[in-house]
Structures are given as structure tokens and as C-alpha cells.
């Protein structure tokens, strides 16, 4: 496939309570095989998807949060998290799990995949995308 488009997956919902977050991640993993330029955005309650130390023992559903750490292996390494959404929920970058990738263009140096950006910058990320999938 010659044409490469910028795919942006916008994650707006908490990881549990509804299935949107899990089924969004399933699209991301399948979509990674198409060699497109993939970005993930986390806004509103979607920022909870990346928090560390998640446990679903009490609710009987699968904890899929470790899958985010594997995204680097799928060449998905641009995860944009909105700062205002974090702050509005009493969260900071320290509450998020560490997600990294190995940069093949830089001697496989391990680099962070998560970028904390402002709401205004998030608007630019959205405007820059060719295809926006909102979950």
C-alpha cells in the first residue's frame, strides 16, 4: 500500500465501565499491520486508561492496561495525553505507566512514547490527522 495516512485514535472514556477503551485498542493493534502513521490521543476520562497499578480483580473483567506497554513493538509510539484532562482529574504524569519504544533510527535507543501536551496542542494534533477514530 503506497499511501500513508495519519490515523488518530481519540480515547475519551475510562478503561472500564464501557467497552470503548478495549475495543479501541483492538483497532489500534489490527491497524498497526497496515503501516500507517498512527497516533493515539487521550482526553477526558480517557487519561485513566494509562494510569499505572490498575487492578480489575474486584470487577471480573480483564485488565488490558499492560497491552499499552507492547505498542512500541507495533511501531505505535506517539501517545498524546492532554494535560488539562489529567489536572482536572487530580492526576499527573507520575500517575501514568511508563511506556517506551526502541527508536530504530537512533541506534535502538529507548525513548518515551507518552507526550503530555496542552489542550491547544491537542487541537493541532487533531487538525493534523487524516483519519480520526473517536472512542
Amino acid at each position, binding site marked *: *500500500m503506497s*499511501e500513508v*495516512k495519519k*490515523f488518530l485514535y481519540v480515547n475519551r472514556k475510562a478503561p472500564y465501565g464501557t*467497552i*470503548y477503551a478495549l*475495543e479501541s485498542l*483492538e*483497532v489500534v493493534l*489490527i*491497524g498497526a*499491520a*497496515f503501516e*500507517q502513521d498512527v497516533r493515539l490521543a487521550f482526553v477526558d476520562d480517557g487519561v485513566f486508561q494509562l494510569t499505572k497499578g490498575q487492578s480489575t480483580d474486584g470487577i471480573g473483567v480483564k485488565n488490558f492496561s499492560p497491552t499499552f506497554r507492547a505498542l512500541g513493538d507495533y511501531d505505535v509510539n506517539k501517545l498524546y495525553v492532554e494535560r488539562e484532562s489529567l489536572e482536572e482529574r487530580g492526576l499527573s504524569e507520575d500517575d501514568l505507566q511508563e511506556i517506551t519504544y526502541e527508536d530504530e533510527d537512533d541506534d535502538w535507543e529507548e525513548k518515551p512514547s507518552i507526550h503530555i501536551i496542552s489542550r491547544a496542542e491537542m487541537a493541532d494534533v487533531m487538525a493534523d490527522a*487524516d*483519519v*480520526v*477514530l*473517536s*472512542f
Partner: protein
Amino acid sequence: MKFGVLVSEGPYTHQAADSAYHFVTAALAAGHEVPRVFFYHDGVNVATRLSVPPQDERNIQKNWTALAKEHDVDLVVCIAAAQRRGMLDANEAERQGKDANNIAEGFRISGLGQLIEMGIQTDRLVTFGD
């Protein structure tokens, strides 16, 4: 223009499947192309041929089936989302050892790759959801 359409909420509970239907109808009438509509999340439930809405209400599945037939629109139901929600075509029912299937004419079950492909091959991807 070439549009791809994603329906991501269930029929009757939510307006998404109706709005998408009206959008596709209008787009085709205006001379645009809509090669494919993809059904995801609870949107997969649109494809059941077993729903029996009251006679004075619209039948969402039948609307889509008729539209697909008339305009050759590819109606694709996500297989992973469909299996979770008990939506099976004859092949899947046999493969999974189930005693029934429920996918209506005009719809087909396939993978999420069809959604990505739609995003690549169309000029605009329009989502109808929550």
C-alpha cells in the same frame, strides 16, 4: 467525494444507525460515493435479521439491507465485536458450534482491517456514535 462510514452505537437505543442511514442516503443522492459502512461496538446489532420492531416504526436493519442492495454498499460487521454480542453468520455459527445464525442479507462479517482499509481508501471517514 468518497465517504467511509462508521456506526458505533446500537440500533433503537441510539440514533447513530439512523443518522448514518440518512447521511449515506443523502450522500448518494448528491452524487457522492459510499463504498462501505463499517459496524463496530454495539453497532454490530444493526445486522440482526431477528429484530421485530412494531409495524408503525422504521425497521433499521431492513433500511440498510435495501440501501445496500440498491446502491451496492458494502456493509461490514466487525467479527470480534459481533462474536462478543452473539452475532453470527452461518459459517461462524458452524465454526463455533452454535445452533443458529442471525446476520441479515446485505451484511457480511469481516475483520477490523476492513475499517482501516476504509480509512485509507476514502476521502473522509465519518463516525456515527456517542
